[in-house]
């Protein structure tokens, strides 16, 4: 076992370590010198990654070689990034915590409960407000843009020079998209995309860096407005969910670290446990504002984060959702000039279906449409998967990303324009359906180009047009061409460096081919299929289900957005079929993106064939341990070891040199850093004015300073720290023989971050973390193992 890095004193560590040099694994740091590790007989090593796409045979021949030359591979989906850490969902029940809880009166607990409700109300209110803001700004700016473009197109049709209007439209679109994309690429890349995968991960228990910061929210809101106004094939619904989550994470803390403003309220909630609960409320409020679907929002949170859940939380989340949709509704009514008339519960409103009920004989048709949606959705996901891999591998510089977004915007405008130019489908506007920006182009006077009503409009309105325009508003060729082009446009657009969601494009796509099917049925001469709008709705549901593969929550969201419970059964059947069919071919879009971002995401259950694994094979070993009273120098060295950035350290007692010690607690890196920062050294006890309180830990949360920023002098390195008071004295442990599914269940149900593996005598032999579990994954050829990678 080679010891690669030289032993250096901590003060010189910083200068010595050039970037990239500290990559080798440290097996024998000064801190680990007293750490007992279990030497198993055998001496050969456990092979990892044999089944992953990369053949590791050469590397595993000798560990020596592996250590010296860390191999580099192109990015693929079978990696786990070191960047992501777990949330500390499990409470640290150390002495400080118990003391504080003991001091709280029953009244105090009631106050905490009440402030939880207040926070949920605030979350709903602010989320609704943000939704309202986005909506109104998009409406105003888009109306302005379309008016300008329409004026020029109308003018150029008369005077000649139509190619100038293409360029004008493309440039306008590109300008908006460029603004949005620049902001995202430069200031906050995590704000790109819909944000739903990230929120899913957060609710799953993964801490995605910077995902719930205020800056992200600002960038997201601005980015969404730009990309929707820029005419990309995107919607503003997905980002609403992310926005809601950020609002929740911000409000519940009573302060903003970015603005350096601390309101000194809600301090009790400054830990991951509480924050995650509020984030689930925020996500629900976001869904609720986006679709006017409060119940759907609650179920979304339930579906995505159900592993840690309780009844009271459900009720609170429902409260937040209701407030959010009400707020949006109320402010929109003010904006529309009739305050108090609460008619717009969501950003997208599918509107009332006049034809009302469906007939029994239509159900088989709906189910077939579900299957079509599944196939198309799987195709969409597969295409997007390849595109995303290409993007990660080759388009990783921010200027390239901005250029890509600009080109996509220009191409979207151009393709729409070509279709409009070539289309001969002219329609007379009906009495009750004013076309917002009718483009005449080469149609006879008094008519407008039919395909322009879907392309030359914000996607939300296009969806509504497809649902509600009377039969015969679109001819079948138009719908087919639209579906065909929009499929590729939407697929291309998702994953660009702009903040935008995939909900609306999917709905639009599905509505188009659904209406096409409806048209064909209506024209088939059988008069029983009256309303193509109904088929558009089912197509939209099928397509969305085929792409995102959500089940319960999506059904409820669709039903609520339609406002018609009778459609519940067909929508459910459609979504079921599309999920089953889609899962046969490819995964859901969000899951694909989670994988491609190498997030250690834990599924509902352990992979089906993993029973033969035991905790011993899963765990990391040996473990860095500390004594109850540990030398400061040791701690600092262990913490500043960049190659093995551990987060939890078991505290052990009564060890001998080569024997693992008995476990007596667990301490986290963040706690150690706070201790070091406050210099809680035994030798300095007399100098300290006050005892360290839980509040000091909360104040540092959530951005604990890196170890490098804490200065420890040579003298202080010789001091010792007593960790007894701060460690969690009752960590969860499992014996070595525990099976993987059992470990998994414990982990998932309790939201653990560290699980200590002990032998018969309670001696620490290993530590199971999220990444140890997430690396097992059921692939096409049985169980596969993901690799850890630096990203």
């Amino acid at each position, binding site marked *: 076992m080679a010891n690669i890095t030289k032993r250096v004193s901590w003060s010189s560590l910083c200068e010595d370590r050039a970037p990239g040099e500290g990559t080798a694994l440290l097996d024998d740091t000064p801190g680990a010198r007293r750490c007992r590790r279990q030497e198993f007989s055998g001496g050969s*090593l456990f092979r*990892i990654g044999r089944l992953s796409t990369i053949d590791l045979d050469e590397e595993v021949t000798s560990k020596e070689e592996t250590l010296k030359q860390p191999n580099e591979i192109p990015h693929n989906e079978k990696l786990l990034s070191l960047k992501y850490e777990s949330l500390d969902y499990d409470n640290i029940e150390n002495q400080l915590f118990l003391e504080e809880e003991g001091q709280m009166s029953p009244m105090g607990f009631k106050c905490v409960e009440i402030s939880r409700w207040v926070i949920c109300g605030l979350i709903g209110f602010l989320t609704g407000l943000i939704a309202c803001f986005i909506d109104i700004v998009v409406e105003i700016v888009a109306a302005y843009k379309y008016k300008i473009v329409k004026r020029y197109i109308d003018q150029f049709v008369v005077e000649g020079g139509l190619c100038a209007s293409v360029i004008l439209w493309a440039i306008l679109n590109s300008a908006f998209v460029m603004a949005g994309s620049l902001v995202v690429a430069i200031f906050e890349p995590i704000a790109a995309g819909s944000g739903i995968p990230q929120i899913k991960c957060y609710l799953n228990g993964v801490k995605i860096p910077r995902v719930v910061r205020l800056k992200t929210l600002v960038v997201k809101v601005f980015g969404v407005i730009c990309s929707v106004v820029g005419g990309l094939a995107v919607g503003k619904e997905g980002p609403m969910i992310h926005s809601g989550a950020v609002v929740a994470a911000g409000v519940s803390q009573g302060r903003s670290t970015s603005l350096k403003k601390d309101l000194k309220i809600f301090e009790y909630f400054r830990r991951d446990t509480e924050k995650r609960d509020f984030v689930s409320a925020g996500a629900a409020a976001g869904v609720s504002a986006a679709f006017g679907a409060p119940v759907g929002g609650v179920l979304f949170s339930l579906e995505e984060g159900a592993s840690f859940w309780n009844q009271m939380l459900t009720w609170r989340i429902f409260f937040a959702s209701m407030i959010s949709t009400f707020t949006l509704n109320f402010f929109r009514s003010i904006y529309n000039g009739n305050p108090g008339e609460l008619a717009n519960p969501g950003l997208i409103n599918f509107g009332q279906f006049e034809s009302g009920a469906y007939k029994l004989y239509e159900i088989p048709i709906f189910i077939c449409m579900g299957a079509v949606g599944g196939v198309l959705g799987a195709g969409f996901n597969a295409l997007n998967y390849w595109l995303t891999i290409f993007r*990660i591998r080759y388009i990783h510089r921010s200027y390239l990303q901005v250029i890509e977004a600009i080109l996509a915007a220009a191409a979207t405008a*151009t393709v729409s324009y070509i279709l409009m*130019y070539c289309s001969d489908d002219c329609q007379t506007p009906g009495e009750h359906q004013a076309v917002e920006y009718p483009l005449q182009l*080469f149609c006879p006077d008094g008519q407008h180009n039919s395909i322009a009503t879907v392309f030359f409009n914000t996607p939300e309105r296009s969806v509504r047009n497809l649902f509600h325009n009377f039969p015969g508003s679109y001819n079948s060729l138009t719908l087919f061409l639209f579906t065909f082009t929009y499929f590729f446009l939407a697929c291309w657009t998702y994953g660009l460096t702009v903040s935008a969601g995939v909900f609306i494009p999917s709905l639009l796509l599905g509505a188009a081919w659904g209406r096409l099917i409806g048209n064909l049925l209506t024209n088939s001469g059988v008069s029983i299929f009256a309303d193509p709008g109904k088929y558009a709705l089912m197509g939209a549901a099928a397509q969305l289900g085929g792409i995102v593969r959500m089940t319960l929550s999506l059904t409820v969201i669709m039903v609520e957005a339609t406002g018609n419970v009778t459609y519940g059964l067909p929508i459910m059947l459609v979504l079921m079929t599309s999920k089953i069919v889609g899962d046969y071919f490819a995964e859901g879009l969000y899951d694909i993106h989670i994988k491609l971002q190498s997030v250690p995401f834990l599924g509902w259950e352990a992979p089906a064939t993993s029973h033969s694994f035991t905790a011993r094979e899963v765990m990391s070993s040996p473990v860095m341990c500390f004594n109850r009273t540990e030398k400061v120098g040791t701690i600092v060295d262990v913490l500043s070891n960049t190659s093995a950035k551990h987060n939890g350290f078991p505290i052990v007692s009564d060890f001998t040199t080569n024997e693992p010690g008995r476990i007596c607690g667990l301490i986290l890196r963040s706690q150690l850093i706070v201790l070091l920062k406050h210099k809680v050294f035994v030798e300095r006890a007399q100098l300290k004015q006050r005892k360290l309180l839980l509040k000091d830990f909360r104040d540092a949360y959530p951005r604990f300073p890196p170890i490098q920023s804490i200065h420890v002098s040579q003298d202080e390195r010789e001091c010792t720290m007593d960790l007894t008071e701060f460690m969690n004295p009752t960590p969860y442990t499992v014996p070595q023989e525990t099976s993987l599914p059992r470990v998994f269940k414990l982990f998932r149900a309790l939201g653990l971050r560290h699980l200590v593996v002990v032998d018969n005598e309670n001696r620490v032999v290993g530590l199971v973390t999220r990444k140890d579990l997430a690396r097992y994954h059921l692939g096409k050829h049985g169980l596969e193992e993901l690799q850890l990678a630096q990203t």
Partner: protein
Amino acid sequence: QEFRRVFFLFLLKIICSLILEAPLAAQSSAMVSLHLVPRLIALLLLLPGRIRSSSPVFNSLLSDLQGDPELEERCRDLLRDFGRRYESYVKCAVPSARPVRICENCHIQFEMLRVVYNNISSDQADPENCRDSLLRADRLMLVYMLFQNLEDVWDVAHCSQCLSGDGLSNITLRYMAKLNQSLSCFESQKNNHSELCRVCRADYKDLNEFYSIMEKNQTLCIDIEDSMNATRRLWSKDFNCSFPREETVPVIAVSSFMLFLPIIFYLSSFLHSEQKKRRLIHPKRAKSNNSLMNIQDKHS
């Protein structure tokens, strides 16, 4: 006279009870005597006829029995008046159906009809007024429904939007002048379509723009909409003066250039951008006893 009235009343009662109660009794009671059956059948057969028949005796009797004949006479006048005006309106409206000129031609008749209807509906003299007796006395409410239908037609046609006072509004008259100008231009050039397109374009454009303004201000009624539609159809379809699709080549050139850009972009970034590599990290694992066995072996 008095005696006759009482007698008829009595007779009426008997008839009514026979008609209404006998079948009911027959249905409800299972113990119907057999000799009653033929009578019941006869009654049942007669039943529809009796209710529908408009025997003068029946009607005059009823009206005689109901309240004050003097008030009835006043209402009867109103009703007659309503009928006359209704007739004249319908006589005007039907010929104006195609091409639609209903607002222009029939607004006077409609106004008169509305006046008499308002008279009826505002008649509230106690205790038995014409409003109640003409409009609300029965399930059918024929007068009300007849008028309501016509009023709906009037509303749907938006006729009030191009009327002002007791005639056509100014803006409507101006529109008509412009329309006539265009149409006369069409008439003068109708033999040569290409010439027509050139000569009449100014007039037509003027008309079209004026129409758009009216559309925005909501001063359109069905007459104007219909005449404009017809004119547009003439212009676009019959005379074929729409704008031709002339610039296909430049548009396609520009578009294909735009669509070509992303392809170049992706190709160049594929060729020139360095591929992002990930550095693998090998975590520390316990050396297990069955170490050299990899996962696949375990599960195959």
